[in-house]
């Protein structure tokens, strides 16, 4: 902020005036910033676990200001560096002239676990390997910028930078306009254009690009969502994609859609378990081969992470002369790779002054500053370096320049204090092989003067304001206006995984309901009947497991549930915890409580069912959820009824039969309907009619079957079975000629039919999975031996 003479640099003056003019306004601004971070993270943490501890992003109230002239030099240097690194990748995965000429050591390339051998020979569309690039810069106290590290794998933070800008421009609207701060929007536009233009489309195809994320548990998942929204790309996980005959497809309910471009936020070695890390559950089997044959563009190119080794920094000036015929504009912090004997010897004499870094991410070694070590520790470090010198890099200890930060001063008052900063700057390839440098960046506040910037997102950040020479270029941040033309009815694109999760959410909700009913009946019987000695603990365990599964499935589809619906789910989760605690105590004194608890649980589950029927948009996703509910209810009831008919109703005395029928009505949730209709004790014929055949009873089997036949197009035996059930002749049970013997036969025959229905349910579920979720031909192939 101050120049060498202690005078405030001109570009800071306006900001200082604004800050100093009104302390109360500064407080307001800070509150505005905090509120926006909170509100946006509420939006962006949609998928987070309700118990999760997502850390809030930290944004300083003061921007880091960089004057136009200083930026121009810097941006030219960043663009040049991106161009150079792109050429280095092309060489390493192609001819490897740099290794042949001795401009790079094989140790740093072949020895790097992100040099991916199977990627050698791949020619990406347009010759672009490095679509997005970021560089970590430090400013020395004399004002010069130095490169600390290159980010080439899949640089993170650009989304946070854009988010910082949206917030801070709102906090200082007048200042932002007066200072003519350059806009950032071209970054996302360029990225979208480049990927669209380079996409390997066949004639007549519209390019489809996706953003591949490791998933909602990734620390920068917020950014993946944010970028996907701004790019207009579907955000997908590995299992949403599939490779068939060399093409990459997105699984949607409308079938497979060919994907032309995958913007990956997943480290390359995790991208394809078939050819790369076999233990990766996050990737897409066959993706690498699709890239090899040119059927898909992967950005950045698989294998780009090899350039992140700090060992390369010292070799780049010569490589720049060789590949570009240009002097490298941006110097890097003095860095020495220990793989050469004289370099190692030199490093060993002054370890206490250096920072030692691992050359490869696979090492179990963290960057360490020699100054922080004791004599014995230094000796151990020296020993370590000599064991495998080529795996270590030493770097000069950097002193970072400071910038004004809105923080607590020594008296605990909010004011301007000075803290060390570093900056990450982003570049994106254009389709014609140049690089656009985002005029701004992610400024990060160091935790100490040596620039130990915490690479995790916890450290504080600042918006970076690059001042324009003339009028700022690009568009200011704004909201897209939506008119009648943009109206969307129904979902345009529904990933199969979402439909699958909704399907299972439906199934588990129903499974929990029947589980709770069974358990309640079991406990009631224990309480009322002296012959029953114990309560079946397996029922409780199953119910608890299924509640957990329902909750997991629900978390996956949270974006589709209304706020109230989600709250109901969270409430069930709370009740589940209570039940778990009580189960652990194993105290039969609690049985009364348990009954009450189960009543409450059933009520909450009924609420979920209500939301399902009345609260959700009726698209294909909803349809799959309801199919899941029907299948589950049908399968569960058919199984229970079959067992009960065989074991409890046939062969038994009238009083035992009546108990069993009461139980059936309870499990089938039809006790009240029965009482209202018949005003009599449970008897065989009316109970069977109500539970099996009455299509006005939403708990009856035939009701489920008719609905399923209507809702699904998959061909199963369900249709035939529903006709068989519908024509069941209950009259014959009344015929006195029928006899006890024949009644037993009749009931056993009915039980067999119910078993077949239950089996048809699993077949239907499997078929739906194959056809709509996995997208494979669901007819098994004849085995032909050749």
């Amino acid at each position: 902020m101050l120049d060498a003479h202690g005078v405030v640099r001109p570009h800071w003056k306006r900001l200082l005036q604004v800050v100093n003019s009104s302390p109360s306004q500064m407080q307001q601004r800070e509150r505005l910033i905090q509120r926006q971070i909170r509100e946006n993270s509420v939006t962006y943490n949609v998928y987070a676990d309700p118990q999760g501890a997502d850390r809030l992003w930290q944004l300083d109230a003061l921007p880091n200001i960089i004057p136009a002239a200083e930026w121009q030099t810097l941006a030219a240097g960043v663009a040049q560096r991106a161009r150079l690194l792109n050429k280095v990748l092309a060489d390493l995965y192609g001819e490897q002239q740099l290794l042949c000429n001795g401009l790079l050591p094989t140790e740093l390339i072949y020895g790097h676990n992100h040099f991916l051998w199977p990627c050698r020979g791949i020619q990406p569309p347009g010759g672009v390997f490095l679509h997005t690039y970021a560089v970590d810069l430090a400013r020395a106290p004399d004002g010069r910028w130095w490169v600390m590290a290159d980010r080439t794998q899949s640089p993170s933070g650009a989304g946070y930078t854009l988010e910082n800008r949206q917030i801070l421009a709102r906090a200082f609207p007048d200042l932002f306009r007066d200072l003519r701060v350059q806009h950032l929007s071209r970054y996302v536009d360029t990225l979208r254009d480049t990927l669209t233009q380079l996409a390997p489309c066949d004639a007549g195809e519209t390019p489809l690009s996706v953003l591949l994320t490791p998933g909602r548990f990734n620390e920068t998942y917020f950014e993946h969502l944010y970028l996907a929204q701004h790019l207009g790309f579907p955000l997908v996980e590995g299992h949403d994609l599939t490779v068939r005959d060399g093409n990459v497809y997105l699984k949607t309910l409308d079938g497979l859609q060919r994907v032309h471009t995958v913007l990956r936020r997943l480290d390359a070695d995790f991208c394809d378990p078939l050819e790369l890390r076999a233990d990766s559950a996050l990737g897409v089997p066959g993706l690498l081969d699709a890239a090899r044959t040119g059927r898909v563009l992967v950005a950045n190119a698989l294998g780009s992470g090899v350039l992140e080794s700090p060992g390369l920094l010292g070799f780049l000036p010569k490589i720049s002369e060789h590949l570009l015929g240009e002097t490298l504009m941006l110097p890097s912090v003095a860095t020495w790779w220990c793989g050469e004997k004289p370099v190692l010897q030199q490093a060993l004499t002054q370890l206490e002054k250096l920072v030692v870094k691992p050359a490869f991410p696979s090492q179990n070694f963290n960057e360490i500053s020699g100054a922080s070590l004791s004599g014995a520790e230094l000796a151990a470090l020296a020993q370590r370096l000599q064991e495998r010198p080529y795996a270590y890099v030493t770097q000069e200890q950097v002193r970072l320049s400071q910038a004004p930060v809105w923080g607590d001063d020594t008296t605990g008052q909010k004011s301007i204090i000075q803290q060390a900063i570093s900056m990450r700057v982003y570049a994106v390839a254009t389709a014609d092989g140049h690089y656009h440098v985002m005029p701004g960046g992610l400024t990060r506040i160091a935790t100490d003067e040596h620039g130990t910037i915490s690479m995790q997102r916890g450290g504080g950040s600042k918006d970076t304001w690059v001042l324009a020479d003339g009028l700022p270029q690009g568009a200011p941040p704004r909201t897209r206006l939506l008119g009648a033309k943009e109206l969307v009815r129904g979902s345009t694109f529904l990933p199969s995984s979402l439909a699958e999760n909704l399907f299972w959410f439906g199934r588990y909700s129903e499974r929990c309901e029947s589980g709770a009913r069974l358990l309640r009946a079991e406990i009631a019987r224990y309480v009322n009947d002296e012959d029953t000695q114990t309560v079946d603990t397996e029922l409780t365990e199953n119910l608890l497991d299924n509640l957990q599964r329902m909750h997991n499935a629900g978390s996956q589809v949270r974006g589709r549930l209304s706020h109230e619906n989600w709250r109901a789910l969270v409430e069930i989760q709370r009740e589940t915890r209570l039940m778990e605690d009580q189960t652990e105590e194993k105290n039969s004194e609690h049985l009364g409580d348990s009954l009450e608890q189960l009543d409450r649980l059933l009520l909450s589950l009924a609420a979920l069912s209500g939301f399902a029927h009345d609260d959700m948009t009726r698209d294909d996703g909803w349809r799959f959820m309801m199919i899941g509910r029907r299948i589950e209810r049908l399968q569960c009831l058919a199984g229970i009824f079959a067992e009960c008919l065989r074991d409890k109703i046939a062969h038994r005395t009238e009083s035992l039969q009546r108990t069993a029928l009461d139980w059936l009505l309870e499990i089938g949730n039809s006790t009240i309907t029965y009482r209202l209709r018949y005003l009599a004790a449970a008897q065989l014929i009316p109970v069977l009619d109500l539970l099996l055949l009455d299509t006005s009873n939403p708990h009856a089997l035939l009701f489920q079957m008719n609905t399923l036949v209507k809702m699904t197009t998959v061909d199963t035996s369900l249709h035939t079975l529903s006709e068989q059930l519908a024509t069941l002749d209950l009259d014959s049970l009344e015929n006195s000629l029928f006899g006890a013997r024949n009644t037993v036969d009749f009931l056993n025959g009915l039980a067999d039919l119910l078993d077949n229905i239950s089996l048809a349910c699993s077949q239907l579920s499997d078929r739906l999975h194959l056809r709509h979720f996995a997208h494979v031909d669901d007819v098994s192939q004849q085995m032909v031996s050749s």
Partner: protein
Amino acid sequence: MTAARYCITHETHYRYSVPVALSQQLVHLFPRECSWQQCDKQTLTINPPPTHQHQELDVFGNPLTRLSFESAHEALTLTANLDISVQQRPNRVLAQSPAWESVSELLDYRADMPPSAIALDACQFRYESPAVRLKKVFSRYGDDCFPAEKPLLECTRALMQKIFTEFTFDSSATEVTTPLLEVLEHKRGVCQDFAHLMIACLRSRGLAARYISGYLLTKPPPGQQRLVGADASHAWVSVFCPQNGWVDFDPTNNMLPGNEHITLAWGRDFSDVSPLRGVMLGGGSHTLAVEVTVTREDT
């Protein structure tokens, strides 16, 4: 020199508890070209027939078959049949090799001297790879086999002998994923473990070593018939020596491979050249049965 002729059958049989909906497989079952080997016939029979099949060379020059299955299936059988003849390889005078340190230094990077094409090629096999981490314990383990200034190939033979003597062949001791440190600690394992360990010991001292996958003619106990399917895939090691080229060592049998070792493929370690590697959708749990039969035809 005499050539041995072999007929090899390698049958792999998967059975899945739940139908596999979609499956992609990488297969290394055809032999690579070597000056001492000639393959007269190679067939791969696959059941069910794959939806797509493609033959190519992998990045290390090994024949690679890509398969994909896009219809549900409950079992998968692959049968490779090879007719192959193997020449006896020239006798090596192990003492006539350069000092091991000089080989290691030759492969080191030097700013003033670009590497030769041969050295550059060797360096592919000189560093860590997915199954071979480099650790101090591995170079320590080989210390007594590598006295100062001794010929590389003699030292390598000493290392092979040491592993053969100190380790017990035990197919129940390890799995494909057992880490090398564990193998070293328990001193038990199979050919794959011994090969990986020997590679780790060599690379830890800056030497280049590659993993060879192939077959070995096994001899039935005296007086007994050879059993069909009693053989197995085999693995051994090759070390880079500038004067002699690559020289093979078999630590499982303490021998220098001659015409009884049949080479299929080589890479940095098992993960580059495993006979079958795949990803399936569905399948539940699976059972795997592998039957290898190596028959000598010329005697």
